[in-house]
């Protein structure tokens, strides 16, 4: 397309005329900017400079602003540069950009080192805030639960069942599959290494204790934190963004009671069930590998398993499950309600929900290990 913008310099006696021509539009903005920056250097070179725009074919905000910018930078205390030959079509546009003031400075990024220090400080301070937030939510959930116990009619049964389906029933296939595979791997590794001492059969002891006490519940809790914790945070966060939670509150409903209690209850019920199924799947997988790879036939496996583990191991695993569920649920709900107005914030809090959920699950597991060791279980 012809009509590239130009700015010709024509000397007129003492003065200088800058004749603009062509299309002064956004399409040509990079060229226009170059032309105008060059012309700005003419400031003060002549006593009288004016800009002739009569030859301009088309003008938009970009062109009008650049002409205005040129006019401003050519003007000085002694002489005001002028714009000549402005057609009636464009005069209102030029008037419009004449009102434009200087651009406000963007908030500057702080320096590298001080910025990093600031970030570290904020993170440390944030940890305290996180703990307070979690305790706050725990209290609110317990208070809501107490209220529901006093007025059982206000309990949201349908909602709880719905969430139970989401976090428990629909999670069964993936949980069972993964724990089955982990059971297989533990068993294979155990047989491979124990065989050197001729202690093949002890793989059953290892599998039983490990799966029932630790791996079963821990692995399932981590999966649930990734699968359901993130979902809770995203659901509550987008409800927060669209002011749905405020709407609930104004109608006289307690969001903790309506939204969070059913979710928490569903999770606390779901995790023991999933942990039990996961442990069974892992034992089954381990037994299968012991049979096919290690030559331990099922009858011997079961006999050995009965000797190796006691009910205590199973109880230890199961007791941990609801506590871990509560931790995951509380972290997810706190993060969900902390979402601010932007999509980015929703993403950050969903990530934080999963990361913190898994972290607290592992911390809880450590605390339980110390506790059970000291009571001799």
């Amino acid at each position, binding site marked *: 397309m012809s009509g590239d913008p130009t700015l010709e310099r024509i000397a007129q006696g003492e003065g200088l005329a800058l004749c603009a021509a062509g299309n002064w*539009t*956004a399409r040509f*903005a*990079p060229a226009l*900017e170059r032309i105008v920056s060059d012309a700005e250097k003419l400031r003060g070179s002549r006593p009288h400079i004016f800009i002739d725009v009569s030859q301009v074919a088309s003008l*938009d*905000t*970009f062109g009008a*602003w*650049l002409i205005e*910018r040129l006019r401003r930078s050519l003007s000085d205390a002694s002489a005001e540069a002028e714009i000549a030959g402005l057609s009636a*079509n464009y005069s*209102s*546009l030029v008037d*419009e*950009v004449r*009102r*434009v*003031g*200087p*651009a*406000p400075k*963007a*908030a500057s990024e702080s320096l590298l080192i001080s910025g990093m220090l600031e970030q570290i400080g904020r993170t440390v301070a944030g940890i305290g805030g996180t703990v307070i937030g979690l305790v706050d939510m725990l209290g609110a959930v317990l208070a809501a639960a107490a209220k529901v116990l006093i007025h059982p009619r206000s309990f949201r049964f349908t909602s709880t069942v719905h969430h139970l389906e989401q976090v428990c029933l629909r999670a069964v296939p993936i949980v069972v599959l993964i724990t089955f595979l982990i059971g297989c791997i533990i068993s294979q590794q155990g047989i491979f290494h124990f065989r050197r001492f001729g202690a093949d059969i002890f793989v059953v002891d290892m599998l039983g204790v490990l799966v029932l006490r630790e791996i079963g519940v821990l692995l399932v809790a981590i999966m649930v934190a990734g699968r359901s914790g993130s979902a809770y945070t995203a659901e509550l966060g987008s409800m927060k963004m669209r002011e749905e939670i405020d709407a609930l509150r104004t109608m006289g409903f307690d969001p903790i009671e309506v939204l969070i209690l059913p979710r928490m209850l569903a999770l606390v019920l779901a995790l023991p069930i999933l942990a039990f199924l996961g442990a069974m799947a892992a034992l089954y997988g381990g037994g299968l590998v012991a049979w096919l790879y290690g030559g331990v036939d099922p009858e011997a496996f079961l006999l050995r398993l009965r000797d190796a583990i006691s009910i205590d191991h199973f109880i230890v695993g199961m007791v941990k499950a609801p506590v871990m569920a509560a931790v995951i649920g509380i972290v997810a709900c706190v993060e969900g309600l902390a979402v*601010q*107005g*932007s*999509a*980015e*914030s929703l993403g950050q809090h969903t990530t934080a929900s999963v990361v913190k959920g898994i972290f607290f699950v592992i911390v809880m597991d450590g605390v339980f290990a110390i506790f059970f060791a000291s009571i001799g279980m």
Partner: protein
Amino acid sequence: MAEQEDAIIRVRDVTVQFGSTRVLDGLDLDVKRGEILGFVGPSGAGKSVLTRTIIGLVPKVSGRIEVFGVDLDAANSSQRRAVERRWGILFQQGALFSSLTVRQNIQFPAREYLRVSQRLLDEIMVAKLVMVGLKPEVADRYPSELSGGMIKRVALARALALDPELVFLDEPTSGLDPIGAGDFDELVRTLQRTLGLTVFMVTHDLDSLYTACDRIAVLGNGKIIAAGSIADMKASQHPWLQQYFNGKRARAVVA
């Protein structure tokens, strides 16, 4: 660009269907260069659907749509890109990018399409803010920190970022107070005059139709049932138009 008189948008025999519901049924519509077309119709008649079909967000079953004389179905991607640079769209809810500031939202199209300095981007951003009647101080706020009216204005500024020739406005005054809505109509009118815009405005606001629009098109039963000036609309015998333009609320506007 020789075509002076002819239509900037030409919609011919367009049919859009969702499942078995036919929303648009053989619809024809022309939007002329430099006019403000007000597009009205009962709620759920498919006004937004037509807008989204023209923009290309909703697929059509049959028909032909030309924008700037380019058939968008036949266009290759660079032709399409060229057309997209020449239009701006104001979505009903603003559709500002929530993780970007006002400044970044307005600069986004220019930053992608034009290789110009940050200084010019900032200056143009301020110019657009001034044009839509906002103070430059809002530049570093996030969309969640703006009021409803401000969001509409920033969204309009973003729609105008590349100085388009054609602007689609989807219910620009909904959710604004009457004074704010009046200002907005005035603003659209001013911008249309200063920038020579063509405006396609979906609206429910009778005031907008009276003060801002050159021509009105009415959608009903999947077709354009009437198009013309306010006077034509009032003279029409169609029952919905009668009720719309001569009803209680309409009389209040005229009085």
